[in-house]
């Protein structure tokens, strides 16, 4: 009986996830044995979880609404970046008249990005409703195309703030610092405290927790329930009087909005807004994280988001110093392990979709 239950558990858990979990354990044990600075590892793990959390959360409404992991969340990311730049620009233009704190500017950035994200999300949802069955591939290329057309936009948008522009030439810098205006680490430092040597980035984690809680509430609202049904079984949903296409658009829009908010959280923690190639491959990290957390391309919960964030980002944080002990080129080793795990997990999830007849 127990053996059967164990076997069932292992099957549900899946070999890929098992390997990753084992790998994480191995890394943790290795970290202890190698006498690495555990407090520092834990600190940077917490920061990374918080900074990626909302981006990973953005996968949830997309999967639940039935469009699958949102490989095109770069669209939302771009809207967030745009909001960030507008906020910085506004601060520059209104300089002298008003003074803004970093917190004001952070929330202004979120506010500015929202209309873009909502509109883009709706258009994107409209498109995805027309390509049912091929959402993942098309989402990926919508993302790639948008990132590359925004590269042109970064060159042409009429921003005048000298912190953003190249000293010579055209357009916005590749990295725009958020330190000058006090936006950098605004969430990380909010109410942050120390337990021993471990720094707890309270504001960052709190923000992620609030977003997750709001999402949890949404999933229990009328609209959220409709979205769940539409994603789970569109034919059932239609019969239950649910507008499936509308639900999918809501899911896509929500995902895009969370992408926009998510990148701003990421940026304030990182200290820079990264433009141009920056957002290109970020969706894959978020997709892989939620899949590692136990989601499939059709099913996901908030627990998957959190477990995924802890596992995937934990590995990334611990892997580098552990690799350092074995190889001279440890920086690339961390990057290599991330590539293999991230894409291996996505591939594994794709083979589990049951489309293989």
């Amino acid at each position, binding site marked *: 009986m127990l053996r059967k239950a164990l076997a069932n558990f292992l099957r549900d858990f899946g070999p890929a996830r098992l390997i990753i979990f084992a790998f994480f354990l191995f890394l943790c044990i290795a970290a202890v044995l190698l006498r690495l600075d555990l407090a520092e590892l834990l600190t940077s793990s917490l920061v990374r979880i918080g900074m990626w959390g909302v981006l990973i959360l953005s996968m949830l409404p997309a999967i639940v609404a039935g469009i699958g992991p949102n490989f095109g969340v770069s669209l939302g990311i771009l809207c967030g970046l745009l909001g960030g730049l507008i906020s910085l620009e506004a601060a520059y233009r209104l300089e002298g008249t008003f003074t803004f704190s970093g917190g004001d500017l952070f929330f202004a950035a979120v506010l500015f990005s929202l209309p873009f994200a909502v509109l883009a999300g709706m258009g994107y949802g409209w498109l995805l409703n027309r390509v049912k069955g091929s959402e993942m591939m098309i989402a990926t290329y919508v993302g790639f195309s948008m990132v590359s057309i925004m590269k042109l936009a970064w060159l042409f948008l009429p921003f005048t703030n000298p912190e953003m522009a190249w000293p010579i030439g055209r357009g916005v810098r590749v990295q725009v610092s958020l330190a000058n205006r006090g936006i950098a680490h605004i969430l990380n430092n909010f109410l942050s405290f120390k337990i021993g040597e471990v720094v707890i980035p309270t504001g960052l984690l709190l923000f992620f927790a609030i977003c997750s809680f709001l999402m949890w*509430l949404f999933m*229990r*609202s*009328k*609209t959220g*329930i*409709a979205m*769940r*049904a539409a994603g*789970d*079984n569109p*034919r*059932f949903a*239609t*019969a*239950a*009087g*649910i*507008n499936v296409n509308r639900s999918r658009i809501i899911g896509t829009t929500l995902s895009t909005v969370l992408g926009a908010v998510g990148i701003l959280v990421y940026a304030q923690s990182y200290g820079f807004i990264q433009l141009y190639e920056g957002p290109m491959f970020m969706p894959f990290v978020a997709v892989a994280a939620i899949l590692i957390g136990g989601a499939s391309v059709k*099913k996901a919960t908030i627990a998957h988001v959190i477990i995924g964030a802890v596992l995937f980002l934990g590995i990334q944080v611990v892997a580098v110093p552990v690799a350092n002990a074995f190889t001279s080129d440890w920086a690339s080793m961390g990057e290599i392990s991330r590539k293999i795990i991230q894409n291996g997990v996505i591939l594994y999830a794709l083979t589990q979709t049951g489309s293989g007849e």
Partner: protein
Amino acid sequence: MPEKYVLEMKDISKEYYGTRVLKNINLAVKAGEIHGLVGENGAGKSTLMNILFGMNVIHATGGYEGSLFIEGEAVDIRTPQQAMELGIGMVHQEFMLIPNFTLTENIKLNREILKPNPVSKIFGKNMRSLNRKAMNADARKALDMLNISIEEYVKVSGLPVGYKQFAEIAREIDKDDLKLLVFDEPTAVLTETEANLLLEAIKSIADRGIAVLFITHRLHEVMEICDRITVIRDGVLIKTKNRQETNVYELAELMVGRKVEKMSRKKRSHAEREIILKVKDLFVDMPGETVNGVSFEVRKGEIFGIGGLAGQGKIGIANGIMGLYPARGEVLIRGEKLPLNDPQKSIAHKLAYVSEDRRGVGLLLDESLEMNIVITAIQNQNKFLHRFGPFSLLNKKAVRKYARQMIKDLDIRCTGPAQIVRRLSGGNQQKVCIARALSLNPEILFVSEPTRGIDVGAKSLVLETLLKLNEELDMTIIMTSSELAELRSICDRIAIITGGRLAGILQPDDSDVDFGLLMSGQKSRKGA
């Protein structure tokens, strides 16, 4: 010397998960004979054919009992390929054709004529070139045999439906060693002229000494071309008759006949009550169940049955009225016009629906029982919600209470309201579907195939539940079912749908012959 049969099936029996679907079937077909195989849906025809073709579903479920003989030799057919090699061919109901290929390419599919070339001498016969000239000649020959004058190099995509059927047949008769050809409801999609052409073609195929097994429910076609006719019902061979010794009426009776287990209920009349539902010229575009203009009226408090064979359109009616498949025509609820093609509107007009596709449309299999029960009411009537201005939140307590009530009322066997419905048995799943329909407080309840895939014991429970709802709540019920017996046991009137149209409306105690004739597309003796 005993007569030589191309195919003999002796004492064939088959069980699926403990249910006996075929019992000691004996069937023999001679060379050049056209043998009709007649039976309702679920009578066991397709299972018999699956055995003949060695389909995987048979062997994956424990094989079959009995023996097969091809030209007197015992064979054990394990794969469709093997069946093909033994000279058994099948003309499918759904076309196995590639639209972008020419007729020739389709006819010679995977049997292409090849010629060697220098590359193939090194890399093997997979690299041999196609000999298109020889292939075209072969295709021409097969098409000529069917009296089809279309050029063999035409692409199939441009052909009318009827000709596609001929392309299928041409492919089969092009096989040199073809001994037995099975036609599975070949005329279902054809116009009358096309069907006549096809019947002619079948005759000429038989004249060449090929045995033909003709599966259909169109009794007049059977009477027109078959030499002998076998009737199967409920997995049992009822009778094999020579054509000369029988007639359409007898076949109809043999096909349908069964004892009607009447539930103890009196004949009721609703003639004086209001007309609650009026359907006029309803067309529904549901793949495989097209409705081509159906009109009928249902009175308040009635249990109205809709019967007929699969693929004839009976399923399409409820799906069309509920807005699940594109429909046009006129549907009046208490004289008020119902806007079609909008499920929300249908639900708002106090209609509720229990789908025939329980697992596909009827349930969210991985959600809890309670969520399955309340979701439609949440979405359409804002029940079970806390409201905070524009925001809403599920009222867990109210849901739980209602689900508990339903579990008690309908006697749903489960571990509790939070159980995942995938783990429930078929009968209990069906009750969950009914509970959801009830959560809407409907005036008219559509129920399609309520007992499909349910244990025998649970079947009568479901039917009793429906009866109870009708009697206690005065709910009008429109029940669609392939099982005539079930319709006859609880319905007040039964409409029979054939070819997407209303063949007639019968009383439950009308004779088997009448039901059989209507179902096979004949005029009833007393006229509909």
